[in-house]
């Protein structure tokens, strides 16, 4: 059975939040770049 240490209680994954924030910003930037390529190729016209 797992023991819950005091240091586990105090552990806050702040670095993880920072990494995931970088991930989300990168995701939006890359997705938006491809979206602009789509628009630039006339993807909004029939």
């Amino acid at each position, binding site marked *: *059975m*797992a*023991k*819950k240490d005091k*240091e*586990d209680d105090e*552990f806050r*994954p*702040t*670095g*993880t939040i*920072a*990494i*995931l924030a970088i*991930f989300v910003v*990168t*995701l939006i930037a*890359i*997705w938006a770049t*491809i*979206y602009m*390529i*789509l628009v630039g*190729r006339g*993807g909004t016209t029939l």
Partner: protein
Amino acid sequence: MKQYQVSAAEKKFIGSHILVAVLALAVGSFFGPLQAFEHAGWDFYIYLKPFIKSYYQGLTVHGVLNALVWTTFFIMGFLTFNVIFGLKRPLKNIVLNKVGFWLMVVGVVAAAAPVLMNEATVLFTFYPPLKANPFFYLGLTLVVVGSWVEGWGLIITYLGWRKENPSERTPFVAFASLVTFVLWQICTLGVAVEILTMLLPWSLGLIEGVDPQLARTYFWFTGHPLVYFWLLPAYISWYAMLPKQAGNGKMFSDSLARLSFWMFLVLSTPIGIHHQYVDPGVPPVWKFLHSMFTFGVFFPSMMTAFTVVASLEHAGRKQGGKGALAWIGKLNWSDPAVASQLLAGILFFFGGIGGLANASYNVNLVLHNTAFIPGHFHLTVSTAVTLSFMGISYWLVPYLTGRKLWQPKWATIQAWTWFVGMIIFSNSMHVLGLLGAPRRVPLGLAPYVPAEWNSRLFQVGLGGAILFLSGAIYLVIMYMTATNKQRVESEVEVPIAEAMQDPALGPAWLDRWAPWVYAALGLIVLMYGPVLFDMIKNIALTSPGFRVW
């Protein structure tokens, strides 16, 4: 405390899977760089003409042996180990598992023979109306059926454990492995129906034509969850083993990990039509619905990213790491099993982003059938999965054989060269795709290649060369380890990271199968039922077979 002892016979059985997997990787990987070299204008296929007739035959060998055989055999071996070790009990009926394994081996031989004889140059997606030799389809069927039989062997082992432990939480590595097997059992129904009702009778001449649209829909019923069949075993290692190896860390949340596996089971099958956005025979409403549910998979993916990175952060801080990101440097990078999986995870960061772009109904139009797609899946199956499996093998093979890992430093070099080679290769493939370069085309021969592609095509070749070198180092390490005269002093410790909170305190509904399996089946009926009913009602077995090679 002494760890559970897996019997010698079971170790040998698991090791047999790894052996077949590595042999498939050895042959398949030889052809991967040849595709890359061809793109760079270095066509080595002309020197292989007596044996390999074309670029497309090489591409088929590469795809079938690496994407289908290497992965499936490694996964079956690794998950069998997880179930035995996790439940701390032997296989209930090892004969059943052995029957499954040998069915798979016979299937691989039956499928590989026509591919190597240039009788099945249909690429790993085997889309009709490309028509292969019947043994190719028969072989694939045997591989799938064999994997089902092995899965049944594991399920009855679990049922035996559950009978004796009615109120205990299923240990995570066994639980997650069984979910992966159940996902496989469900999703492979698509390809089984495709082969048995159309492709096999068609190739045998029992029916005259085939319906390519229906066949593609069946294929992607299996094809997308296949990605999760590849990924989930790597996730099991990332969740439950890597934190321990990286710095004696603990799994941040056992409950989140279990919930994410259930969500993958429920959500990963009824979304296959997002691979068919430009198929004219699929109504747009179904493409839209499948695209929405594809984004649903983003949630368990982010839960996985959060839990795995938090567990690694826990390990890094235990080793004295400080700051928002500096703890990463404190992880146990000198262990090749750790370095491989951390590097695989870093590249998967970009693989996930590319996957979301592919899944977007509108943005996909820029990427569809371009070099972006192989660029993407070389970050997922060829790195997140393959490099992780290589990392796992760096402790699993010494564990199974009792022989020391040969030259651990070279194993670490192998991981880094794979990482660097893949960055160069995959980045240039992504960019080429955005510039409009098609996939599955020998671009070295194409007369329409604009000048702006040239530097990127060279980088594809360069990346392929580094990956070839890395793959060769891996194969040498595996061979030298398996034959190493130096034995380990004591049995290799299986790295299992305990959870921060006792799993028994987690919700009981996370350890109940029925609601999740019913939800998975129900969602499949809702998302595929009407579209498949319509396609089957209007089936047109009219397309003749083509042999274009």
